[in-house]
């Protein structure tokens, strides 16, 4: 279990990290980055799996099932879209 205050600390520190990591991003990467961060919240899949994993009634199972499907869509779609975008960045020198 994560206790209340510890959770708050994690929340605060993670918020600072998120802010700092993005702060120096060039405009040309804004769309891929939005897409990349969109992929990262696909971690919701883990939660959806746990929720479906302890669902008892049929209603809970149905909702959990939809949750896992949606979360997988978020993670998988987000990954391939981001990868496709980033694949294209090249310099005129020809290296990657």
């Amino acid at each position, binding site marked *: 279990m994560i206790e209340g205050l510890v959770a708050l600390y994690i929340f605060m520190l993670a918020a600072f990290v*998120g802010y700092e990591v993005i702060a120096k991003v060039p405009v040309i990467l804004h769309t891929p980055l939005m897409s990349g961060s969109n*992929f990262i919240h696909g971690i919701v899949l883990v939660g959806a799996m746990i929720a479906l994993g302890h669902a008892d009634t049929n209603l809970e199972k149905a909702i959990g099932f939809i949750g896992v499907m949606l979360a997988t869509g*978020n993670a998988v779609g987000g990954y391939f879209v981001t990868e496709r975008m980033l694949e294209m960045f090249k310099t005129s020198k020809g290296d990657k």
Partner: protein
Amino acid sequence: MIDNWQTFLIEGIYFLAAILFILGLKKMSSPVTARGGIIWAGVGMILATLATFLTPHLSNLDLIVIAIILGATPAWWSAKKVAMANMPQMIALYNGMGGGAAAAIAGVELIRASAGHELSNTVQTLAVLGAIIGTISFSGSIIAFAKLQGLIKKSLLFNKQQIINLGLFVFLLVLGAVIVYIGSVPVIVIILFFLVALVFGVLVTVPIGGADMPVVISLFNALTGLAVAFEGFVLSNAAMIIAGTVVGAAGTLLTQLMARAMNRPISNVLFSGFGAAEGQEASDNAGIEGSLKPIDATDAAIMMAYAEQVIIVPGYGMAVAQAQHKIWELTRALIERDVRVKFAIHPVAGRMPGHMNVLLAEAGVPYDIIFDLEEINAEFEQSDVALVIGANDVVNPIARTDPNSPIYGMPILSVDKAKNVVVIKRGKGTGFSGVENHLFYADNTRMLYGDGQKMAGELLQGIKEL
């Protein structure tokens, strides 16, 4: 705290995944390392997912596997298939799915709570908040997707919309408070709660115009992150808390950067609807001096071929016409003739910041000849030709001069300062803002009417024939 090796292993892998996400995001913020960044984050995701299968007392394994396969296949297929110009709406769609998943987690937990698995007040509050945010992000993102995809054409504004929205939001909060306070409410109340949140997300997004969509999608992205973090607290899952919060914070910053580039406070984007500007259209036409002066592709080609420096300014019109490949061919033809060619990208050109960069990158334009607004604005004065293709509001000098204009104060590319301006444009219409563009009437501007791709081809032909 750690009762057995399974939990220890799972927690360790989540910890590793969180590190991989943060490092991946960090790498994604530089063009050189960006590719590696998404791969690191991807490895983190796979590890975390596999570790979750080890969770003690995890039932419904068959359902989980089927749901993953059913979710992954269409997402993989659509992400591989979609055209680069349609990326923004796909991001909106995948983001909505994430919001929906967070809401579904809350749904399962709240229904379980009503069946006797009681949650503490704090946890229940977070579950409810995550449910509200996730559901709004879900239905709002779907609307954003539908709008950009052209499934919904109109920006709907109806009477007293804001009052209805406010009323609905208050009702939503009251329902949420009731759920938290009572603890185990009948399932029907929970269903009503989610329905109200869904409707609210739709109503908030429907009036927002296409030009503001990037800001809205970015905001929904941040909101989904936050919803994921909240549901992470509910399940006491550190990986979800960290990843969700990082995305929430990063997304918020990204939203601010975009809104600032458009000179529109976020509150404005959300609560006014761009439709408010339409009434002003008529008065804007007054006071324009000069006339629209058309030019042939051949003449424009000669102008560019003998120039020393040409700056190309792409906008959403280039994406619509899929003209980026032709533009790159044109650029190479010019470079062969020793013309210096640079690309100038306005932060909100297209449907998202960086949207133009992605399209140009797809065509093979190297990113070191692509420049942002601040880097290139001073150079227009020394340029012989500025070629505007499908950009409108972001090059409208009225943003500098007319305080009454809805786009007044928005930073623009100083295209009008170039010695000659060639504007490729399909027709005589206005940009998203509905404001007449004074640049098109300027003495040094020539209009090249036609489809972006076709005109770029004709320019290329003209240069090759010289």
